[in-house]
């Protein structure tokens, strides 16, 4: 093989490559669960990516047609199993919307606390697993060390560590236990200084920057066209967050909270924190920006959590009782989306008014839409960049396949 060095570029001669189909997954360690990608490659370059999904399909929607809304809560846990609390919240709000149920302030603040804690836990896994995708193991251990503490907090609240079924239509299954807020505050003050470690390990790491900057660039138009949401949408510079822009029933929870949507505006991110700078190589919408938005959202969630805990401890009312198992559903249909860690999680509920079992339920999954953009942004990249791009979308297969 003759090579010729032309400036910095090395041109290879006499290397004949054939087109080849490469199967990645469903058990490849960097496919985030049972995702199968079929790559059409020519040498190192990938010309086409075809995702094949459905390996975790349980048809939760069909199950939902045979259960009452409260019985279906555990199935929502198992959709995005890394953010079970946020899934519960989406479903609970949807059912409450149909029932026109209003909550006390205390219940709302409780939900904000739980949802933001869930967001931190989910983003920590997203960060750690992304490190794994790129071949570094240690951030994963750091991330799980902190996530473990959140799971301990959740365990104290509802007894479960992964599938909580804690937030129910009508409120929650229990109030926060005595002394929990102090423990949560202690955890937050522990977590806050550690975040700079994460930035040192990944965000500002030279190898990480090389692997993620200017790779898998998703333009804002394409992100909207494909229905991307959450950090994937905001990483492309679209200023949209349902916590601010969503339905009243949902934004009501965050009413009066001081927070700024994490997105790059006029060339910079919100400046109220000591964030690491954006590398010069990064292009808005690339893998690095998606990752960065997630990291900043962890800090943002810590802020929101502190505000929520203050409000919760002085709020009136109680945490809300779950609706009865046999509550009759009025005739009608509702659709509600919430800002889950991975994006906009929507639930659709249709009742014919005949009893407590809905006629149709539907879950709109954020990862499903986020993954559907993958063939577009994976075109023409080297094989080694595929895990970097798919990892940056931070998908959970349980949610995609439902």
């Amino acid at each position, binding site marked *: 093989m003759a090579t010729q060095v032309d400036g910095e570029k090395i041109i290879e001669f006499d290397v004949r490559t054939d087109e080849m189909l490469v199967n990645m997954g469903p058990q490849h360690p960097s496919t985030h669960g049972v995702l199968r990608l079929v790559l059409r490659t020519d040498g190192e370059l990938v010309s086409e990516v075809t995702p094949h999904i459905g390996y975790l399909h349980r*048809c939760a929607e069909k199950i939902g047609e045979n259960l009452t809304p409260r019985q279906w809560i555990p199935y929502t846990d198992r959709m995005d199993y890394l953010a079970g609390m946020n899934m519960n919240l989406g479903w609970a709000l949807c059912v409450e919307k149909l029932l026109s149920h209003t909550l006390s302030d205390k219940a709302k603040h409780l939900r904000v606390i739980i949802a933001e804690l869930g967001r931190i836990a989910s983003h920590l896994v997203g960060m750690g697993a992304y490190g794994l995708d790129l071949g570094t193991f240690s951030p994963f251990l750091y991330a799980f060390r902190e996530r473990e503490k959140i799971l301990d907090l959740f365990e104290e609240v509802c007894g479960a560590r992964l599938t909580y079924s804690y937030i129910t239509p009508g409120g929650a299954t229990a109030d926060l236990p005595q002394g929990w807020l102090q423990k949560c505050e202690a955890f937050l003050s522990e977590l806050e200084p550690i975040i700079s470690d994460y930035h040192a390990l990944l965000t500002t790491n030279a190898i990480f920057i090389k692997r993620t900057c200017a790779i898998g660039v998703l333009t804002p138009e*394409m992100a909207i*066209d494909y229905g991307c949401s959450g950090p994937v949408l905001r990483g492309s510079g679209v200023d*949209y967050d349902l916590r601010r822009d969503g339905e009243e029933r949902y934004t009501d929870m965050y009413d009066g909270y001081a927070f700024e949507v994490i997105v790059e505006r006029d060339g910079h991110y919100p400046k109220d924190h000591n964030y690491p700078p954006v590398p010069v190589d990064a292009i808005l919408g690339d893998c690095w920006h998606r990752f960065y938005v997630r990291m900043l959202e962890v800090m943002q969630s810590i802020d929101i959590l502190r505000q929520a805990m203050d409000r919760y401890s002085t709020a009136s009312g109680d945490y809300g009782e779950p609706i009865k198992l046999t509550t009759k559903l009025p005739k009608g249909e509702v*659709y509600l989306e919430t800002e889950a860690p991975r994006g906009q999680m*929507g639930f659709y509920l249709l009742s014919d008014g005949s009893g407590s079992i809905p006629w149709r339920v539907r879950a709109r999954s954020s990862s499903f839409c986020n993954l559907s953009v993958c063939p577009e942004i994976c075109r023409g990249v080297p094989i080694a960049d595929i895990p970097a791009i798919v990892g940056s979308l931070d998908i959970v297969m349980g949610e995609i396949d439902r």
Partner: protein
Amino acid sequence: MAGDKFLTNLQKRFGDKITGSNLGAIDPWIEVSPAGLVEVCRFLRDDADLRFDYLNCITAVDYLETDPKKAAKTGWDPHLEVVYHLSSIRKKHTIVVKVKLPRWKDDEEGELPELDSVSGIWSTADWHEREVYDLSGIRFLGHPNLRRILCPEDWVGYPLRKDYEMPLDYHGIRGR
């Protein structure tokens, strides 16, 4: 979004292609005839005041009461309904578009009903329509790649139809 003005504007433009509406519902909806769907959707996306640039979700609902005793009381004939949830990132408003379809094309059991694809308008529709095809059995005309997406490609039947029966056996795996 001014409700009534929006509706009269649509009706003036599309006439009888707008077959129904309820802007007072919890989620306001309009109903469109299958033939007018793509045209109306394109207008909803491109009109300067509406700008529904974001397709949230496509759902198919099967209206079929399998219990003959209850069927008499339902008040509707068996049919399918496809529900499109749209929103606008720029204008921050939402709308629901519905389309009614027969359960089978020409009432011939096994022949899937057909509907024009909106995947040329919102790319989100690509996978969502595949999912609806897979689980509810609606053929989308003009879709670039209409294959099953969640179920295996050799799966028989459409699980989210109300008269669906779980197969007893799939490649030697016992179903129930």
